[in-house]
């Protein structure tokens, strides 16, 4: 098991820069997510680590070893492919045993090598030795596939195939586990279950894991830390809560959770309070900023809907409800305030009334919750 350090990684495909100066410092045992929209270079980053792409420049270290010059089959990175890439001509057991066979192959003399090859081509002719048998059955039990060991992978459901892919990667006891959008081929319900499964296995084994996804919810709910990527660059690295409450750019604010983002101009800063002009309204924030022109970011759940009788607040605005969406435990309102339309989430308890379209409301935001970027 090991840490992964990526320094100044750059990758060009025939002149086009796909990755630029990627720096990552992933700790041993960490669950690290690479998050970004499709085409931003997540897969390429992962393939550079696994050795399937050669970096144009930069270094990659796994543990203390610089792996730049190591072939992909010598890096000991377990990889779970987006398509699972299971071997369709082998049954579940043979799939999982593949890397163990390879290890035997490396250790044996020519004569024994032939035996291992025979086993890999047809495991009915050549039986597995006890140690492999034991290891494979253990890992299959771990991912709850014991009963399916002799089935062809095409006979399994999507979630089961996913677990075969996971078991196949885990059985080689990799230094790092790489997963490229592993859940994207599963339906919604299964995706939630698998999130928990993967997270639990990762914590059990304390295995360093890099998890690629374009789904912010997935990244935020599973990872210890998340790197947000865009156009081949890393914008910000942080814990999920960090990213959520202190996004460094409007893109992250928008990509990580829902945000109301409005351009504004800083008027003054007095008594630890910054006043910003947005259109013909003013808003106060406790955050300081050097900038003159800023993006004001407010999370939907940080906007309160005021009762008529409540006293005046610092940041209070009049608005008109455009749409009300009932989401179970919350109600989401689209509210027109001046020329902006704000998204507002309110908690909903049974018995509460839902405001109707066209109603006027008063909204307020605590100045601590007004982010300036």
């Amino acid at each position, binding site marked *: 098991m090991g840490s992964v350090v990526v320094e100044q990684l750059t990758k060009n495909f025939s002149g086009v820069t796909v990755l630029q100066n990627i720096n990552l410092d992933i700790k041993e045992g960490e669950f690290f997510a690479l998050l970004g929209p499709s085409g931003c270079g997540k897969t390429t980053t992962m393939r550079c680590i696994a050795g399937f792409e050669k970096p144009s420049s930069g270094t990659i270290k796994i543990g203390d070893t610089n792996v730049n010059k190591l072939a992909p089959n010598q890096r000991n990175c377990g*990889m779970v492919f987006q398509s699972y890439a299971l071997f369709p001509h082998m049954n579940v057991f043979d799939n999982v045993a593949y890397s163990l066979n390879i290890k035997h192959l490396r250790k044996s003399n020519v004569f024994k090598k032939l035996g291992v090859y025979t086993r890999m081509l047809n495991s009915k002719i050549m039986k597995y030795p006890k140690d492999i048998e034991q290891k494979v059955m253990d890992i299959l039990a771990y991912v709850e596939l014991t009963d399916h060991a002799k089935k062809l992978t095409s006979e399994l459901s999507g979630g089961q195939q996913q677990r075969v892919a996971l078991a196949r990667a885990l059985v080689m006891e990799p230094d790092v586990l790489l997963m490229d959008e592993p859940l994207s081929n599963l339906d919604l319900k299964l995706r939630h279950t698998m999130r928990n499964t993967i997270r639990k296995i990762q914590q059990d084994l304390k295995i360093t894991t890099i998890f690629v996804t374009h789904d912010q919810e997935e990244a935020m709910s599973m990872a210890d830390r998340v790197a947000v990527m865009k156009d081949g660059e890393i914008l910000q690295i942080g814990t999920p809560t960090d990213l959520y409450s202190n996004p460094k750019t409007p893109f992250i604010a928008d990509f990580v959770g829902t945000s109301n983002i409005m351009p504004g101009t800083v008027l003054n800063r007095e008594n630890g309070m910054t006043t910003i002009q947005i259109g013909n309204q003013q808003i106060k924030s406790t955050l300081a900023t050097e900038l003159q022109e800023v993006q004001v970011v407010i999370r939907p759940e940080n906007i309160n809907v005021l009762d008529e009788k409540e006293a005046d607040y610092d940041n209070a605005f009049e608005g008109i409800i455009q749409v009300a969406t009932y989401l179970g435990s919350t109600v989401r309102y689209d509210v027109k305030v001046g020329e902006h339309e704000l998204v507002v989430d309110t908690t909903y308890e049974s018995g509460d009334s839902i405001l109707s379209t066209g109603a006027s409301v008063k909204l307020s935001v605590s100045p601590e919750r007004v982010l300036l970027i």
Partner: protein
Amino acid sequence: MNWLKQTFTGIGIVRLLVYAFFILFLILPLVSVFLVAFTNEPINLFGSLISLDTMQTTIEQFKNATLDNFKAIFSQGHYFDALKNSVYLAFMVSVIVLLICVPIAYGIARTKMPFKRTISALCTIPLVVPTFISAYAFIIMFGRAGWVTYIYQALGGEGLLIDPYSMTGIAIVQVFFFFPYALWPMVAAFKISDVSLEEASRNMGAKSWLTFITVTFPLAIPGMLSTALVIFSVSFSDFGTPIILAPTDLNLLVVEAYREIAGFFNWGGAAILTVIMIAVAAFVYWMQHAFFKGKNYDAVSGKPKQIKLNDNKALTISLSAFSGFVVLVPLLAMGTVFLQSIATTWGKDPLPNGYTLAHYKTIFTSSLGNIQNSLILAFGALVLSVIIATFVSYFVVRQNAASLDFMTTVPLIVPGIAFGIALIQTFNTAPLQLTGTAMILVIAYTIRRIPYMIRSTVGTMQSIKADIEEAAVNLGASSLTAAITVIGPLMLPGIAAGSILVFVTVIKETSVSILMAPAEWAPMSLAIFQNVLRAEYYSAAAMSIVLVVLVIVLQAIANRLTSKQSS
């Protein structure tokens, strides 16, 4: 150093070996034969690299090189006649094939002509019969003692209806046995075609046959010209028909080249004829690719759609009659061979005088060796093809080996007899004295047929996603181990289908067998050829039937495999 290390991995070595194989047994012979056209003596390029003495001799040979052979093409009527005749023959055959295919293709694609299915099925017969057997069948039909001649003379005709031993005879055999190559692409084109254009035309009130002539037909013309070029090269390269039927006074390139080498050991003469053959074949191939690239039938847009089929009685019946006649000729030819194979004697009569299985008994006792040889040689070529084609398709698909891709299409262009001559010249001295061995025969078969195998394996390889192989490598396998344990087994169906194809074509192979097979390794095709030359028609007939049956059975197995794979 780093480069060396990367090259000499397991798979890197295999790649070098594959390149070496094609360079040694394909490129080197072709280059040599070109040089021999100047030096008039076999030159030993490979030997020159190894031994200084040989190098010295080779340099001497180059010093004496002349342009005489090239001049002779134009001055000495001999070579020029051969070129002229061969081109004329191929040209006539392709024109006639196109003409007879248009009505049949229209009938199959666009009408409700009677017996459509039967006719379609019978159209595959010519493809399983090697041309030297068809040519021989024509002799026993149209020759002096043939039953056609009997009927013709009984009806008051004089002499022969058609002299099989003539340019006309050769052309007729080729037309009736090569037309399916053009027919099926044409049927496909007529079926697809641009339905929207046709509907527009029909909306304007045009009759369906008028629409066909004014819209569908013109759209298919580029594709038809491309097909005509295919027929041209098939006819131009065909050895089986002319070697049996060409009279001594008819010069054809393939026959002339064979006589120069097998009769007179005239290295220079054979070389120059080989160079001419390859030049013409390459030119035709180039034309086909330069002018008709992307203009094949499949470029005609539109989806196959239920088109209203023409059921005009007069039209469909005459189409059916015409198509029936065209498919009947090869059928009768094969029927005649069959009758001959079970005839006690068969003089100038419509039917044999009596029936016997004695000829088959003879075959399976005294000529069993030939059958075994065929099977062994074909199996050798199969094994070699499987190994090489699997790796070639791996290198072409996964490593973009463009030069390898190019090299493996070269055998498609080079006529068999030309390739055979090139091999004989190149490998007739030490250090690689292979001429006259079974090994060089197997290699020749392999190289000639491997393009078809590679086409099949490349297709399968492309359908295997790259990440499957990456998964194996990620799990620790080297590229070679991944190829053996994952890619190989996944390619098995494609390999199986392709290898049966190789097996079948090797059994049918004529030119290389006749030219190169040593006596102790004579395959069936050579045995039949020699029997025909010795006028031992009965055993030739029986052996032909055995060969054709073998081909049909194997072909059926291959078809099943491929249809299973695609379903």
